[in-house]
């Protein structure tokens, strides 16, 4: 029988994959993809917990995560476009003007 742990482990693995993506990607667009992966991983965990505890709160959280992800993508992509217009690249290594 598939238990809560199974789902959580899958969630953890996907989350770690997202984390690897976040860490190794230098292209901003790809970074966005990686964050989406992480968000989805968390959503799985929420949905699973919601299911196994018979509580809707987890699903609610998942909804709002999706909503936030959507907003993030909308604004983020807008910003990426502006950035690309300005610098002609999305590679993070080229943006180091905030060096301390």
């Amino acid at each position, binding site marked *: 029988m598939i238990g809560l742990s199974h789902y959580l482990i899958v969630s953890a693995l996907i989350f770690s994959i997202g984390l690897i993506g976040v860490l190794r990607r230098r292209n901003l667009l790809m970074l966005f993809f990686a964050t989406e992966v992480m968000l989805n991983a968390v959503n799985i965990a929420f949905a699973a917990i919601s299911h196994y505890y018979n509580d809707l709160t987890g699903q609610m959280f998942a909804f709002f995560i999706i909503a936030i992800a959507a907003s993030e993508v909308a604004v983020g992509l807008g910003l990426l476009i502006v950035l690309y217009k300005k610098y002609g690249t999305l590679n*993070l290594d080229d*943006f180091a003007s905030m060096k*301390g």
Partner: protein
Amino acid sequence: MENLVYIALFAPFVGSMFAALFGMSPKQTFVGIIASSLLFISFAASAVLAFHVYTTGTAIHVTMMEWISAGDLMIPFGFLVDQVSVTMMTVVTLVSTVVHIYSIGYMDHDKSFNRFFSYLSAFVFSMMILVMSDNFAGLFIGWEGVGVCSWLLIGFWYHKEDVAREKNPSISPSWAANEAFIVNRIAGLGMLIGIFIIYWNVGSLQYDVVFADLPNLSSSVLNAAALALFIGAMGKSAQFPLHTWLTDAMEGPTPVSALIHAATMVTAGVFLIIRANPIFSMTPEVSFFIAALGTFVAFFAASMALVNRDLKRIIAFSTLSQLGYMFAAAGLGAYWIALFHLAAHAFFKALLFLGAGNVMHAMDDELDIFKMGGLKKAMNWTYIYMGVASLALAGIPIFAGFFSKDAIIETAFNEGTYVLWAILVLTAGMTAFYSFRQVFLTFHGAKRYKDEIHPHEMYKFVLIAMAPLAILAVIAGFFMGGFQTFVTKLLPNYEMSHHTHELIVVLTAVVLVFAVGGIWLAYKKYANGLKRDEKLENSFLYKLLANQYYIPQFYEEFITKPYAMISEKMWKDIDMKIVDATVDGIAKFLYKSGDKARAMQTGNLSNYLNWMAVGGVLLLIVAAISAMLA
């Protein structure tokens, strides 16, 4: 009678405040007159009180108000007029009155005339508190009060600048004043500790309560208390090793030296021993130490006086020496004799100082007796006064000093402390020698002063004002018997044993031989002018004595300078370089680490994400571990 107590106490205070009103304005003779009259009122009140106490034999005890009360401690402003304090009151106010009147003449040309009277009267007020208080804390008020007044008065001519020690052994009035104050503070600490010991063992500071409770105390407590109180007395009465300030205090105006540093304040130490005699009677070891130290100081100071050339310093050393006598008497248990010598000494020593003041006045503030001589003609009255005072000091029969000092020397014999007796006898001879060396060098022989100096006698009223002291210096001794019956109502009586009584003629004769011998030696050496003996003056002993056994230099080299050096080191090396540097070091460490950590801010988001991930994973691990532990 209570009102009289307050009049005697507060008249000098009123005088002081009145003079202080005019403190910053130019000289007003009436200020001096009013201050003197108020003092005379105080004297009159004291005399009436003395008569009252004498006739009724009862003490007057008044409590004005509460001063400090905290916890179980209750200190009132209470005043006790009994045989001991009334004696002191009378002596103090009498000498003060004379000195006040004398000062009107002496300070005539000083621009701070009014201020002087303000200080002088304030001193008398403090002294009255000291002697009249009915508890140790009140005594301490007076104790410190006279210290401050003495500081003000020694430093009266504060505008003089510091000079090298070789030129003037006391450097400057302000230096001497500070020295006096600080040394007195050392004594003050001893006194305070004594007060603390008494308080925590008795629970009160009132004399009557404390003395009544003494039998219940252990001997170690009593010894500690007695020793602590005596340390206090040592400072105020300038006993070795706290004696250097007294000769330096001669920087003050001469009336001050007469009043404070001869007649009254310095005797406060003796007064304390007499006042607290029940404690000291129960601590024979401490008492013997007092007697021994007193004897030593008597000899020690007299030896320094032998070669000194400074008119006032000689008298100051002689004061020291006489204080030693008083302590010797008090330490040996002859409290009433000590008190009697205190009173007699006050009269003739004040007279001596005032005479010296006349000489100074005449000689344009020259103090070196080697540069005087032949003043007899110009200053006949002063010569007589100083002669009388010196005779009294030397202990020539019929003069006051003979009775009191002889009694002390007999006491030493009577107690079987023959070493002390021998030293005291020898000192009596030295006393006679240096007193008359000074008189002869000043008044006899040819003149050695510069021609532009025209010696002249002091004002008439000043000379008249000095008369009571002169008379008392002569006749005070005759009241010894009466005095004994008067004060021994309060103080333990001290009578010579039968054995001593038999020998009294011999003893007196021995002392007299030494005294007369001293005078004769001085006469031979100095009466016909000064013949300087280069060889003697260059001898080691002479130099040792002339430099006061190098004690001031020793203090300077081993206390003053190291203190300043250590202070400087503590500030620059410890405070700045260790304590503060540690604090700044922490701040600098934070700054530096921030500066170093700045390198993490590469500006590359990817790096930040790495760091964030590191932090996140670390937190995860911590969470995991703590979950496992739980």
